[in-house]
């Protein structure tokens, strides 16, 4: 696949390309020294660019087409993953994938939104936008996990629930609402990770849990910056301002008390090093599982309901 470069990454890629060319002459000690110098500069540049990213730039990273998706994380973090299909009522929604897997010593139920990388796979995955049967498949498999006392890990990465005619006929709203209700008192630990795009109810539909983690360059909000721009500014041109106003990045949500932990990404973003991104996330998940497994389930559900009850700011 052709490398995709975001506008703000360009100076980094230019230097990196220069280094690549120079490597041909690396036998020359002068050039080798020069390479070392430039590499240092690349690193510095990367640090400085990535420490000053705007919210909109982070949204772009969250949507980077080379970013690891749910199945990438599952493949890199777990063994014995068996994908299970269908909601037993209507069909199998390809925008949500799920199945049992082993995360080191833990047997878990993995559930996540799944995007495609090219036009064909995106059409197959409906761009990661689930229909009601996707949420119902997720719920069926959560119930299965509950039956066999296995923790649930959900990975959120969707531009939204599909706003289609048939989605309405089959009760998109009811499917999401039902999941919020059932996840609130599911009798096994649930860990939620926002790995890319967390757009509104479509994301939250598999997003209620005991611990909410968020990757460094992902976003999570009530609406996408584009839709927000089109509604409040009545134009598609204010997406940058909308992203700022919505405060939808991981540090924003941590400050708002909506997520528990920010999961760091490799320098330059998860798309640059899938294996490392997955290893960092896996480490965090193992620590969370260890901690959650010590809490009695009734207490855990009580704390889960309390956790969401506390979200919000008001006076009087």
């Amino acid at each position, binding site marked *: 696949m052709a490398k995709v470069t975001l506008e703000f990454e360009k100076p980094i890629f230019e230097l990196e390309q220069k280094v690549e060319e120079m490597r041909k002459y690396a036998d020359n000690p002068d050039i080798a020294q020069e390479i070392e110098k430039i590499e240092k500069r690349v690193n510095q540049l990367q640090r400085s660019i990535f420490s000053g990213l705007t919210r909109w730039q982070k949204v772009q990273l969250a949507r980077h087409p080379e970013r690891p998706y749910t199945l990438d994380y599952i493949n890199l973090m777990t063994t014995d993953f068996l994908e299970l299909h269908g909601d037993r009522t209507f069909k199998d929604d390809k925008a949500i994938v799920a199945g049992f897997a082993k995360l080191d010593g833990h047997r878990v139920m993995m559930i996540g939104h799944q995007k495609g990388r090219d036009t064909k796979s995106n059409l197959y995955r409906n761009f990661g936008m689930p229909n009601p049967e996707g949420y119902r498949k997720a719920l069926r498999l959560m119930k299965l996990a509950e039956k066999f006392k296995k923790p649930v890990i959900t990975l959120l990465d969707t531009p939204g629930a599909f706003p289609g005619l048939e989605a309405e006929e089959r009760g998109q709203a009811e499917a999401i609402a039902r999941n919020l209700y059932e996840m609130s008192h599911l009798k096994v630990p649930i860990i939620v990770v926002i790995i890319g795009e967390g757009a509104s109810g479509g994301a939250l539909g598999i997003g209620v849990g005991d611990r909410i983690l968020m990757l460094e360059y992902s976003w999570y909000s009530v609406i996408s910056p584009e*839709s927000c721009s089109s509604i409040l500014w009545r134009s598609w041109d204010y997406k940058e301002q909308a992203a700022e*106003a919505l405060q939808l990045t991981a540090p924003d949500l941590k400050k708002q008390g909506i997520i528990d932990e920010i999961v760091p990404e490799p320098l330059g973003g998860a798309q640059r090093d899938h294996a490392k991104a997955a290893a960092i996330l896996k480490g965090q998940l193992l620590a969370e599982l260890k901690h959650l497994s010590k809490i009695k389930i009734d207490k855990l559900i009580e704390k889960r309901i309390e956790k969401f*009850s506390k979200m*919000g*700011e008001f006076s009087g």
Partner: protein
Amino acid sequence: MAWFRRSKENIAPATAKKEMPDGMWTKCDKCDEIIHKMELEQHMYTCPKCDRHFRIGSKEYFKILFDDGTFKEYDHKMRSVDPLKFKDTKRYRERIPDAIKKTGLYDAVRWGTGKMNERNVVIACMDFAFIGGSMGSVVGEKIGRAIDRGWKTKTPVIIVSSSGGARMMEGAYSLMQMAKTSAKLARLGDAGIPFISILTDPTTGGVTASYSMLGDVNLAEPGALIGFAGPRVIKQTIGKDLPPGFQRSEFLLEHGFVDMIVHRKEMKGTVSTLLSLMTQ
């Protein structure tokens, strides 16, 4: 969750919009019948000729559902604090007082306790007139407290919805109100206490995708727009005109998402009968 797109036409109740110059007469926007204010009130703000249900607010609905003189309101003055310092073409900090001034309400929901045909109930009712009935922290918190009251006092909970969805100006806080209200309903449900959801025109977005669809019984007023995505967005997605009656109460009944369509005049009686069947 695009309440704002429609807000210009919808910000005021349909009754107010159609009022005649002297304010005593209203024209039905469905059948053109001219109706006197007194008659409209007698008919619970439905058209005596064609049964069109006009949009009403919590004040009118509380009067319809509670026995006279039994209603006690809680958290009346709870209001938004603009947690994100949100600014689009206008500051949210200014939108709130403007909406308060215009509607005489503090946010888009009110709740209280009282009697319904002599039975104790908790009722929360949304006001579409307040920023399109959008759900932010205040709506979520007040709905949550109403549910908690039902849970703690073992009293049935009734929520009357009308909303354009989640309130954008509170970002992820608004989104989380969906989880918050649903979590509290799960606790209510586990305690075996009934929850009746009444859906009125319009109920869309995050409110539909949380408590409105979670009734042990979902009742809808006739002809109400009920859905997840707004009709405009769906039309854009599919690039076709939507079939007549799409996302109306009758459509939801047909597809299995509401239990009954109930005329406003029969709402109180129907809910009372349901509760007596469910609890005794």
